[in-house]
C-alpha cells in the first residue's frame, strides 16, 4: 500500500471517529437541566391525565364544546398534530428523492417530530370521543363510506410507517452505539443489543437496508398526502360555510409543511445548542431550511388568499357572516395576528439572509408554529357558529366558545407528550444520523471496514 493511500485512510478514519464522537457525546450527558425538563413534561402530562380522568367521569361537558360548536380545541389540535407530522415525509422522503444532500442531518429530527406528532394526533382524536370505551366499534362496525374511517386507516398506517422510517436508518447507528456505549446502564445496553438486530455492516446488510429505506420513502409519500387530505375532508365533505371548500386538501397539506418546517427549525436550534452540533446543524442547514419554509409559506399564502378572498368577494348570506366574523368581528384580532405575525411577516423577514441565521429564524419559527395552531382553531371553531338556522332557545354558553381548564390542560398535555417522546428518544439515540453523515463526507470505505 502506498504512503498516500495509507494517509488518506488515516484521514478518513480520523474524520469518521470525529463524527462518531461528536454525535455520540450528547448521549453521555444527562444534565441537571435536562432532568428538570423531563420532570416538567411529566408533570404536565399528569395534569392532563387528571383532567382527562375528570372528563371521562363527568363527560365532554367539562369542555366548552356544546351542541353548536361541537368540535373544539381537541379537533383543532388533532389537525395541528397531523399537520406537523407531515414534515417527516417532506424531509426524509421528498428532499431525499430530490437529492437534497444538505437535508440529511435533519432527517432524524424530522422523523422524531413526525412520530411525536402523529402519536399525539391519534391521542387527540380519542380524547375528543364521547365514548372512548367504544373505540373498538370503529374496526368492528366500521363503514367505509365515512371519512372518519378513512382517517382512522391512514393515521394508523402513517403511525406505523413513521416508526419504520425512523427505525430503519437507525439500525447502523444503533450498532455503533452497541459497540461504543459500554458505560451505560444495563437496560440501555439491552435496547441497543435488541434493536441493532445483529447489524454487522456487511455488504448484503447494507444492500437490504438501503433498499428497505428506499421502499419506505416512496411508500410514505402517498400516505402522507392522504392523511392530511383526508383530515381536511372531515370538514370539506360537510355543507358548512367556511368548510365546504374544494381546495381544502391542498390548503391543509401546504399548511402542514409550513407547520412542520417551523417545528424542524426550532428543534434544530435546540439540538444545535444543547448537543453542540454546530458543525452538523450548520448555518447552511438553517439557511436552506428557512428558504424551504419561505417556499411552503408562499404556497400556503396563495391558498389562504383563495380560501378567504373568494367567499369574501361573493359575500353570500352565510359566507358573509363567517368572513365578517374573521375579518372585522369577534375573531378578527386572532385572525389578523395569525395571518400577519404567523405568515406575512415571517415570509418578508426570511427573505433576508441575516434572518435565516439560527437565532432569528428560530424566533420567527416559534411565531409560525404558534400561528399554525391558532390557524387551526380559526378553521375549526368559528364556522360552527354560522349554521343555516339561527341558534335559539339554548343557554348563553352555547353561543360562544371559551376553552375551559379541562381542555386547556389536556391540550397542553398533548404538547408535553410530543416533546417527551422526542426528548426520551434523543436521550438514547443520536439526533443526527451518524452513518448518513459519514457516507456523505465520503468516509464510507472506512465505515464499511468498521465492524
Amino acid at each position: 500500500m502506498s504512503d498516500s493511500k495509507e494517509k488518506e485512510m488515516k484521514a478518513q478514519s480520523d474524520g469518521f471517529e470525529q463524527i462518531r464522537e461528536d454525535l455520540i457525546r450528547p448521549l453521555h450527558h444527562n444534565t441537571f437541566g435536562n432532568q428538570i425538563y423531563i420532570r416538567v413534561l411529566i408533570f404536565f402530562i399528569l395534569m392532563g391525565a387528571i383532567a382527562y380522568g375528570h372528563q371521562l367521569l363527568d363527560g365532554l361537558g367539562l369542555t366548552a364544546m356544546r351542541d353548536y360548536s361541537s368540535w373544539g380545541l381537541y379537533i383543532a389540535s388533532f389537525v395541528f398534530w397531523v399537520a406537523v407530522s407531515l414534515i417527516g415525509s417532506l424531509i426524509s422522503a421528498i428532499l431525499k428523492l430530490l437529492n437534497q444532500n444538505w437535508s440529511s442531518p435533519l432527517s432524524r429530527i424530522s422523523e422524531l417530530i413526525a412520530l411525536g406528532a402523529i402519536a399525539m394526533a391519534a391521542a387527540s382524536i380519542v380524547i375528543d370521543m364521547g365514548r372512548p370505551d367504544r373505540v373498538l366499534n370503529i374496526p368492528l362496525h366500521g363503514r367505509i363510506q365515512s371519512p372518519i374511517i378513512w382517517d382512522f386507516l391512514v393515521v394508523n398506517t402513517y403511525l406505523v410507517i413513521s416508526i419504520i422510517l425512523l427505525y430503519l436508518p437507525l439500525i447502523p447507528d444503533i450498532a455503533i452505539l452497541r459497540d461504543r456505549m459500554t458505560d451505560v446502564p444495563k437496560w440501555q445496553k439491552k435496547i441497543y443489543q435488541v434493536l441493532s438486530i445483529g447489524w454487522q455492516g456487511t455488504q448484503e446488510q447494507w444492500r437490504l437496508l438501503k433498499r428497505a429505506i428506499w421502499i419506505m420513502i416512496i411508500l410514505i409519500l402517498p400516505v402522507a398526502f392522504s392523511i392530511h387530505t383526508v383530515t381536511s375532508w372531515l370538514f370539506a365533505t360537510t355543507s358548512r360555510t367556511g368548510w365546504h371548500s374544494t381546495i381544502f386538501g391542498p390548503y391543509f397539506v401546504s399548511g402542514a409543511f409550513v407547520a412542520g418546517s417551523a417545528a424542524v427549525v426550532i428543534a434544530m436550534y435546540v439540538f444545535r445548542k444543547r448537543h453542540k452540533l454546530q458543525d452538523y446543524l450548520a448555518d447552511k442547514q438553517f439557511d436552506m431550511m428557512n428558504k424551504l419554509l419561505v417556499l411552503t409559506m408562499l404556497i400556503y399564502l396563495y391558498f389562504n388568499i383563495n380560501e378567504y378572498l373568494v367567499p369574501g368577494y361573493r359575500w353570500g348570506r352565510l359566507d358573509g357572516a363567517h368572513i365578517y366574523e374573521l375579518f372585522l368581528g369577534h375573531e378578527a384580532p386572532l385572525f389578523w395576528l395569525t395571518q400577519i405575525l404567523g405568515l406575512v411577516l415571517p415570509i418578508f423577514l426570511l427573505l433576508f439572509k441575516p434572518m435565516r441565521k439560527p437565532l432569528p429564524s428560530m424566533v420567527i419559527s416559534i411565531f409560525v408554529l404558534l400561528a399554525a395552531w391558532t390557524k387551526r382553531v380559526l378553521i375549526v371553531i368559528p364556522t360552527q357558529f354560522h349554521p343555516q338556522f339561527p341558534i335559539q332557545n339554548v343557554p348563553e354558553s352555547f353561543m360562544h366558545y371559551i376553552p375551559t381548564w379541562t381542555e386547556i390542560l389536556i391540550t397542553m398535555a398533548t404538547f408535553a407528550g410530543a416533546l417527551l417522546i422526542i426528548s426520551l428518544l434523543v436521550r438514547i439515540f443520536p439526533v443526527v444520523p451518524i452513518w448518513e453523515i459519514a457516507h456523505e463526507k465520503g468516509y464510507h470505505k472506512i465505515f464499511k471496514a468498521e465492524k
Partner: protein
Amino acid sequence: MKKNKDNKSETRRNFLKNSALLGAGALASTAVLSSCSTDVESTGEKVKLLTATGELVEVDPSQIKKVRKEKLSELSERGREGLVGHHWTMVIDLSKCKNARKCMSACQGAHELLPHQHHINVLQMQDTPSTAPYYMPKPCFHCDNPPCTKVCPVNATFKRKDGIVLIDNERCIGCRFCIAACPYSARMFQWFEPDYTEEERNRIYDVELNVPQKKGTITKCLFSADRLRKGKLPYCVSACPNGVYWFGDKMEDSVTNGTSKETRKFSELIKENAGYTYFEDLGTKPQVYYLPPKQRTFDYEPVDKVMKEDHEGEESTHSNAKH
C-alpha cells in the same frame, strides 16, 4: 336493410337467450352439485323468493343460506328495520304556530331531555326586514338523502325503510361528525351524564324512543317511531293546540292534523298552500314540509331567544324535564 337489422337483433336476442339458458344451466348444475356435496336432503317443499331483479322463483328450503346478521336485541332489530311499507312525512303550517311550545315540552318529556335540548325547537324567524316575523317549529327533517348517516363511522345513525333517521346510542362513539354534517342543526349531544337513578339508567334501551339517554352519545328527533309503531301520531303532533302539524304517510298520500284529526291528501295540501322544504339546493330531500306563514290572525310576541343560565351553573341544569 331493415330486415337485415331485424335479423341481426333477432340473432342477438337468440344469442342472449341461449347464453342466459346456458348461464342458468351452469348455475343449476352447480346448485345441484353443491346440494350433493352438502348432503342436504331435499324436503320436497318449495319456498317462494323474490330475486334482486324482481323475479319470483321457487326454491327448496335446503338451498337457502342463512345471512349473517349482527347480533342485536329484539328492540334494536325491529327499530333498525322500521315500519316497512310506509314513508312518513310531516307538514308544518307556519301560519298556525302561535309559539305555544306544547310540542317542545311533550317531546322533552317523552325523550327525557333537558330544558335546553330540543328535538323540536320553535324558532323565531324573519325572512327579510320588511316581512313579518313568524314562529317556526323545527324537528329533524328525516332527509331522504341524509348527510348525517353518510358520515357516521359505525352505523350508529341510519335511515330505516320507512324513511326515519334514527340513532343507536348503544353503538354511537360520540365523534359528533353527524352534528358537523347536519345542515339543519337537528342533532345534539349528551355532554353530561343524564340525571337518572340507577334503576332508570339500567332500563332496556329502546332505539325508537332513544331512552334511556346516554352520556357521550347523540340524540335527536325520531319522528316518535315508538308511537308510529302503535299507530299513534307523534308526541309533538298530538300535543299541539293550534293545528300546526300534519303527519302521515307519503305512500298513502295522506296526512292527518294532530289537533283537528282532519285527514287530507298530502299532495293537495302541499300544492294548494305552496308547501316547501328547506335548502333544497343541498340535495338532502327533507321529509318535513312547510306551509308559508300567510294570513295570520294573531299577534307575534317576541320572547327571549336565549335561555337563562341556571344560577348554580350549567352543570346543575341537567335535571330531567320529566321530573
